[in-house]
């Protein structure tokens, strides 16, 4: 069968060569939360490449640690969480997890643009949008803060917003879709190279969602950003992303080009997730709910596969041994014992191939 050419083979080969890589690279990242029950890992041993010019979709349910992971990219994990191992390296900046104080603030909102889940909560309700942009410029040492307003106005027009009106508005005067676009303006106005969108369309209706995604797609291509969309809605990623990373309980369980992960889903979780989405055409009753409860920090197994309790194909080995990340195609990996050893369970080979 014909396969779509993997777009990031270049970045894979550059893995050992820091100079050749442009974008954001996460290596072996572990984040724990200190709780009464001891230290619980919300993110464990995550490797992630966000190359420039690529939209990466990070998919996970509530409790999968995806927002913690995103905040770690800003070195902004809230207490009692902390990064205990690993690195987040950005080309031209270095390891963000080692930055502190002023240097860190320059990076956040500067080369690293972040759009928050509920952008109405990330804008100051007492200040007009324009005044907040000036604050951003001053805090980032822009020589002539007023120039930033011109840049913001251009971005606003670009997104189909009336710049004069938006810049002189308070956040409550803007609709949800407009606020989300304003959030993107804030993220990009200082020429960000990496754009992190946390649930960018969750609170929007379908027309606003389509419009916001269209804007992200265009600006991403125009500025050759490294864009990451974090969402529980696999359909948004399926429409937008070049690469797709599926997380479960703080682990990356599958990653690859979006087309490959959708078509040849290798991990039982990815397959179940895809089956649980009702489709707009075809047999509607083919959709099946995902069994069990979403993971919560306290009940994530520390040994063995994190998905085993909800997995229809769980084997004895899944309780005892962490599944290694194995290749199932060019640039397509999964962490599942079934994919690792098709010979061990020949009768399941159909499931392995998906």
């Amino acid at each position, binding site marked *: 069968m014909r396969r779509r050419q993997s777009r990031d083979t270049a970045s894979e080969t550059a893995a050992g060569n820091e100079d050749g890589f442009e974008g954001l690279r996460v290596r072996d990242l572990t984040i724990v939360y200190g709780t009464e029950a001891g230290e619980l890992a919300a993110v464990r041993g995550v490797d992630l490449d966000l190359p420039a010019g690529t939209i990466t979709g990070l998919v996970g349910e509530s409790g999968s640690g995806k927002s913690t992971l995103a905040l770690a990219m800003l070195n902004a994990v809230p207490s009692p969480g902390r990064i205990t191992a690993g690195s987040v390296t950005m080309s031209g900046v270095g390891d963000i997890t080692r930055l502190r104080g002023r240097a860190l603030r320059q990076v956040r909102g500067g080369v690293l643009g972040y759009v928050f889940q509920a952008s109405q909560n990330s804008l100051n309700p007492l200040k007009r949008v324009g005044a907040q942009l000036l604050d951003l410029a001053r805090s980032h040492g822009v020589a002539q803060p007023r120039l930033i307003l011109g840049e913001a106005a251009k971005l606003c027009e670009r997104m189909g917003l009336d710049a004069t009106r938006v810049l002189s508005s308070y956040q409550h005067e803007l609709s949800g879709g407009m606020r989300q676009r304003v959030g993107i303006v804030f993220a990009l106005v200082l020429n960000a190279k990496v754009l992190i969108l946390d649930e960018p369309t969750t609170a929007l209706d379908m027309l606003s969602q389509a419009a916001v*995604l269209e804007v992200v797609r265009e600006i991403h291509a125009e500025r050759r950003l490294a864009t990451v969309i974090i969402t529980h809605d696999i359909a948004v990623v399926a429409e937008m992303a070049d690469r797709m990373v599926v997380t479960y309980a703080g682990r990356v369980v599958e990653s690859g080009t979006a087309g490959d992960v959708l078509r040849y889903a290798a991990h039982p979780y990815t397959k179940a997730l895809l089956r649980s989405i009702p489709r707009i055409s075809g047999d509607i009753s083919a959709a099946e709910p995902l069994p069990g409860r979403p993971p919560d920090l306290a009940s994530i197994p520390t040994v063995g596969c994190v998905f085993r309790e909800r997995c229809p194909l769980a084997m004895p080995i899944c309780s005892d041994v962490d599944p290694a990340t194995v290749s199932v195609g060019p640039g397509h990996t999964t962490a599942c014992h079934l994919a690792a050893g098709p010979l061990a369970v020949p009768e399941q080979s159909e499931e392995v191939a998906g």
Partner: protein
Amino acid sequence: MIEVRGLTKTFAGRGGLLGHRAVPALREVDLQLPPGGAVSVIGESGCGKTTLGRILCGLESYDSGSLLLDGRDAKELSISERRERFQRIQLIHQDPYSALNPTRTIRQTMLASLRLRASATKRSQAWTERRANELLELVGLDPSYCLPRYPHMLSGGMRQRVVIARALTVDPDALVADEAVAMIDVSLRLGILGILRKLRADLGLSLLFITHDVAAARYVGEDGQLYVLYRGQVVEQGPVDEIVQRPTHPYTQCLLSAIPVMRGLERPGPDRLVPLRPLDDNVEPPGCLLADRCPQAQDDCLLGRPPLVSAGAEGHLHACLHPEARSVVATPEPTGSSTR
């Protein structure tokens, strides 16, 4: 049977950017919800779909038109009749976080309502405990796990199930689900939709399903009707799959085009349209309400508001001067391509 005829509702101006202005929420809406049937209502934020749901539940007044409950005008019912009748139409809303009292356990929440029910129907207090268990099981929850817990200890999906179980305590014959799964993780939505589907099949409940997720509407009410609301006006209506597969109104086509396509598993519809520009509800076009945003608008669209007329197929109506059937929704890729 719940029916509305010529339902019109205008909210008094609350002073937008341009000063005081009235906001029409519903414009002469006709709708029928037969016993055991399903009607899905789609449209963007602010199209009046929530107002429609609230009027059906007796929670909102209306300016003109009529609401008929089993053939009787709601305005002619006595106060006690109204209360009794509207109790049998229960609203499930979007936010299960604010729908439950955070200081009460699920047991207290369920029993408060069941005790009233028990005294109204002359049943014993022992019945309330039994019934609470039954209802929680009906919505797929483990009563021994949920009953002693407070809402914050449950996931969003579980909370929405509790809200549905509580709605069932009064033995309703209709549910109005207003964006009932919008705040739930995609992976858990199907579970909630499955319950609504089951309640229709097993208990014969009728369902008004207000959503912007058309695929969800198909799942709970594929056999029912789909209404498309735009600025308070029904612009297209008909059997769900007829509207999804052969929409004729440009607004419906834009809504359906906005559904993300799962590339690799689905092929985009051949006539998929580009996203509409944002709604400017300060402007009210004199003719067709969509004229200022419509990709197919022509000069005569500004002259008169098109009436809702037959689009040809059985039960399919549209309100457009220049309707044209387009195929905009994605179709599944042939299954053969899913093996390497």
